[in-house]
């Protein structure tokens, strides 16, 4: 290998010599942009020097306080602070609404709890149309949620570095991959169901989480969950996920919170951990150049690729039709995706079959649910009249 040190490029040779000698004196890499290798990501940290931050001029006036904004109320914080952490921080005791506990008829706080059986019902009504029955198969590209094997995580599909490339890819599912159950509760509660998140109560979230954990074979204190098992904060904290130790660097360092950050800094500061090049300049590859061309090209581009400079085809002006916005917000996740199995808007044949039943029947089914579709597609904020407008739009768009 003929490395840079040997090369007679004047410019680069001087540059390298300079940084190498500074390394010797200061113990860290210094460049001409006021930087040192002390950033938390193991990279360069730049400081303001002579009124400049790297190439940017800055205002360096010293101000003690700006005193902007106002103090947040406890209820406001409770309304927004709904994150959940592995140690149980944020995992709710009660059903909550607008930052306050929900009260029952006797004025008592409603305990947040839900059974696996309830979770199964909710899952079938609101989740299965995308994530498949039992979470076993993502429909139309949506993620599968169960059925992973932790042993598969070390599979490398056709890794050129391996002598025996594996043909089975790793399966990163809830039970096989996710390190903490708290993440599941938080994600369902905050971001699911996909078309109308934040619609599930804490009790319903416990129920769905319990159902998914059961489908993933997760046990509570060694016991399998059955349909009658009731999940709540106390039970949830007993859950240990099989792949909890499957991640590094270690960031959970309660004895010294800064240690976890330092572990990452150390990891990212050494590029050998994730692959680094060498600045070889000549004769770098011994023998033949190992060339691999595309065998299976992906080219389903939308719109098709073109670099032509011409006038576009004249298109009719698009106007928003009645029901279109509601359709796109609440229905298109399923009815715009052929893989889900619902009649796709624009598919003349599919909608001819639907409307052959008579319009009243179509309205009835959409409002009350049919096959994999829950009542009103799961969005109970829609009125019956809204549903009729949406269906009229879907039918008109499919003629």
């Amino acid at each position, binding site marked *: 290998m003929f490395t840079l040190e040997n090369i007679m490029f004047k410019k680069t040779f001087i540059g390298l010599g300079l940084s190498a000698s500074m390394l010797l004196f200061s113990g860290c890499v210094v460049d001409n942009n006021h930087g040192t290798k002390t950033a*938390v990501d193991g990279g360069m940290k730049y400081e303001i020097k002579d009124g400049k931050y790297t190439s940017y001029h800055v205002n360096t006036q010293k101000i003690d306080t700006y005193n902007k904004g106002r103090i947040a109320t406890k209820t406001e*914080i409770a309304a927004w602070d709904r994150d959940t952490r592995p140690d149980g921080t944020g995992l709710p005791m009660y059903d909550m609404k607008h930052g306050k506990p929900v009260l029952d008829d006797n004025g008592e706080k409603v305990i947040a709890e839900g059974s696996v059986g309830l979770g199964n019902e909710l899952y079938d009504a609101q989740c299965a149309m995308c994530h498949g029955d039992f979470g076993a198969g993502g429909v139309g*590209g949506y993620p599968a949620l169960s059925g992973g094997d932790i042993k598969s*995580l070390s599979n490398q599909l*056709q890794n050129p570095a391996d002598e025996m*490339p594996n043909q089975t890819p790793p399966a990163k599912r809830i039970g096989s991959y996710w390190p903490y159950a708290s993440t599941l509760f938080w994600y369902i509660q905050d971001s699911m169901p996909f078309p109308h998140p934040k619609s599930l109560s804490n009790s319903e979230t416990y129920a769905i989480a319990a159902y998914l954990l059961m489908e993933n074979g997760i046990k509570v204190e060694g016991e399998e969950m059955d349909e009658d098992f009731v999940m709540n904060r106390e039970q949830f904290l007993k859950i240990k996920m099989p792949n909890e130790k499957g991640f590094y660097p270690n960031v959970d360092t309660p004895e010294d919170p800064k240690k976890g950050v330092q572990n990452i800094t150390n990891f990212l500061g050494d590029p050998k951990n994730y692959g680094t090049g060498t600045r070889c300049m000549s004769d770098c590859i011994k023998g033949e150049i190992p060339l691999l061309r*595309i065998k299976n090209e992906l080219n389903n581009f939308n719109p098709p690729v*073109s670099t032509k400079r011409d006038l576009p085809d004249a298109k009719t002006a698009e106007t928003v039709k009645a029901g279109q916005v509601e359709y796109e917000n609440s229905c298109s996740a399923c009815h715009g995706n052929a893989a889900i199995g619902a009649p796709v808007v624009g598919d003349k044949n599919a909608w001819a079959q639907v409307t052959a039943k008579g319009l009243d029947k179509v309205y009835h089914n959409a409002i009350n649910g049919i096959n994999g579709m829950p009542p009103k597609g799961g969005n109970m904020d829609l009125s019956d009249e809204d549903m009729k407008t949406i269906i009229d739009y879907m039918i008109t768009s499919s003629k």
Partner: protein
Amino acid sequence: MHRYQNFQGEDMDKDSKMSEEVKSLSTDKKITSRRDFFKKTAVYSASLVATSAALSPMKAIASDDPAIINDVEWGTKLGDKVTKFRYGVPSPYEHNNVRRNDPLLSSGDEYATVTMCPIHESEGIITPNGLFFTRDHGGTAHVDPEQFRLMIHGKVKKDVVLTLQQLKRYPSVTRTYFIECPANGSTDWRAPQYNNLQFLKGMMSSAQWTGVLLKTVLEDIGLEADAVWMLAEGSDNAGNPRTIPVEKALDDAMLVWGQNGEALRPEQGYPVRLLVPGWEGNLNTKWLKRLEFSDKPWHSKEETSKYTMLQKSGKAIRYFWINEVNSVITSPCPEKPWTDLKKGDVVEIEGIAWSGHGTIKHVDITFDGGDNWVEASLKGLVLPKSWTRFSYILKWDGKPLLLSSRAVDDIDNVQPTIDQETTAVGVESVYHRNANVTWEITEKGEVHNVHIRKHHV
């Protein structure tokens, strides 16, 4: 069945057979002679340009050019009124310069997916706001700025709520930074799949951002001594909560409301997003509503089930924040080939280099698949954690090339070869792929995405 991996790390099937062949580029003899040429090119490129006119003299055409001889329509009548577009739009002739998507790279819909920036058409180091790549997890939210609230709470001296107007009263700074999704280029972990720069590297863009340094706000409010981690959360339907260390928040992180001289676009988080220079695009929380401080990290869905890098051991790297040193040649590329060139033509090879770890220091390029390298020139502004342009002027001999670039940043991290990267992290990482991109240039000037890798099937 061809199994491939989409950018979310899901394994997908495609009806085709996976049986890549390894081919030797050419005989040693050929390479040796080309090597000599490159060495000369490296040393004498400046004089080559000076003498290029003499080497390929210009010729006159047989008949006059109608584009000159005839009067043109736009020169012989009134144009548009200056008031026609109160917000200007690109020339209609530029209608192909748009973001594109591939349905295979989505969760079956166009809400939780990505559109790719047309970086083959990018000029300089700024992406126009309408072409900036977009990645949503639950669709693009449209936030009413009057109802925007930013809550900052947890291990702070006081829990604070700011309106947009109050936030904008902090002193502002304007900086140029790239944002890159760490899944950029992830379809190439196992083999080359896209013959297209936009889809290979278009999950990134660069802009001039205006906002307040998070440090300014946090010093005003005051942090507790054990505030080590910060959670940022959006107000959109996915929220996309992510954890970053306070050290980064107090370094160069910003709360931005301006993008290239105007308000953020809705796709970029209007009215306010978090900007975490150089780090994973997913950390730059859009439609920001909440910052919470703590002594413990959060382990959100996007830092456990996703945005973690599975290794050969079966263990995964987490909190891999930075986008590493990287580069790609943008001209030529599969969309912008050399098919208009003839033997002996002088042509500029141009590209983009970037590093989340710092500032680009060198870019080298190779014409023979990485056997021999020469240093390219950096061009224009060279700023930390920004796109940096590089340039090399070549007199093309009309012969096939294996053209690639290699960037070095100011902590002397060097962009790896494919083999150097996969030896370290395997091929199931999904995220943070920064290996060399190689274009095969054919005699006709066509450009193809190829891999230089030891790959035995």
